[in-house]
């Protein structure tokens, strides 16, 4: 699986999850795309952030990913 394919799968997963969760752990992406190596998923997710298609959400101790423009307050209550 190449990086562009992984990026596409990440975006599809994020959009699907966005209905119920505003923020996603990297680990959840790795679980959702078991065919890709964790390192490649990490690289793809970070590239998506650079491209502005994803955003980091940091609590200081953990980092999660979200789609830009999400209601993060809603997500925080869910977490």
């Amino acid at each position, binding site marked *: 699986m190449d990086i562009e394919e992984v990026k596409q799968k990440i975006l599809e997963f994020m959009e699907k999850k966005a209905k119920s969760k505003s923020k996603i752990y990297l680990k959840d992406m*790795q679980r959702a795309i078991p065919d890709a190596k*964790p390192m490649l998923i990490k690289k793809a997710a970070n590239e998506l952030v650079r491209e502005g298609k994803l*955003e980091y*959400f940091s609590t*200081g101790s953990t980092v999660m990913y*979200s789609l830009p423009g999400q209601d993060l307050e809603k997500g925080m209550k869910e977490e």
Partner: protein
Amino acid sequence: MSEIKKHDTPMLEDLKKGPWPSFVDDIEQYGEKHKKQSCFDLLGQLELSYKHKETHWKHGGIVGVFGYGGGVIGRYSDQQEKFPAIWAFHTIRVNQPASKFYHSSALRKLCELWDNRGSGMTNFHGSTGDMVLLGTTTEQLEPVFFDLTHQMKMDLGGSGSNLRTPSCCVGKARCEWSCIDTQELCYDLTMTYQDELHRPAFPYKFKFKISGCPNDCVAAIARADFSIIGTWIDDIRIDQEAVKAYVGGELKPNAGAHSDRDWGPFDIQKEVIDLCPTQCMYWDGEKLHINNKECNRCMHCINVMPEALRPGTDTGATILMGAKAPILEGAQLSTVMIPFIRLEPPYDNLKEIIENVWMFWMEEGKNRERLGELMQRVGLANFVETVKLKHIPQMIREPRSNPYVFWKEEEVPGGWKRDIKEFRKRHPA
């Protein structure tokens, strides 16, 4: 400049009493001198938190600098109407130089930057080791980052699910006991793993800490997921004349560290020999003998008689893994994985181990699970095998009562099954 508004803070006033320096005084003085409303709003909110017995900070957010997933920790006040100057009060972690050596001009520049673009309040240093710049607004983050990287050649440190800023003890720079060049190793790991430091890669935080000798001045054994502690494999160097000088009272034990009161004459038997945890040494009245094979590098004798005893010259490091503070499952000290490894640049042998550990942790670790918790969950024996290390006898403390390394069927000639009839032919019941 608008007038500074001070809040009523009777409980904080109490903290100014007493002989010790008070952070309340410091913050007030700074706020008055620089006309910073944020200092007084910070104290006002703290007073309110003392009153309500709960924090008024909202933790976390999407703040950061472009391309980095760490280094900035979002902080917002939930009392924005009362304390508008601290409605956004983000923390910035700055990667400290190895062993925290600074030129005073670098510190001046950093403080000037923070006076202008932040609250002016700092924390030198945070527990991780970074320089911590406390309190700024979202729009100041990129300018601060630009100034740090372009003018001061400094970088942000790690936060979140990243590699945290590696830290090390003072090492060979100022310590005669350092068995490894901690600064060089710390710098090398920092530069090699820049991507892991700045972009989230892991289920949770991951810390390297490097100590030059088993005294472990950075407490790597208690705090780091991956502790690197300098050690030696040859014999402790002994200067018998200096040992006699300690016994005769010419040299002060512990380099005079406990000379604030009279502890009586130095007693080598009581203060060194009897306190050796492996009982591997004795004093015959003329000469100190050490059975080095039994020594477990506790450093006690070396600490007490630094002019007489020194670590050996054949040096390297012990690798331990899995320490953490008590969030889940209680505090854990790290476990010895490699009793001795030679460490020379470019440290490829070490990096191979690090990357094997990361690969396993990234695949198997749960969200917010530290390496030590993963090790507990999968079992030490499985962990050792998975990260391609070897089981060693020293990992078993009491072979007959707590063996956690078991033979597998394929490792035993003939496996588990045996032909009972054949057995009985040779051994009648």
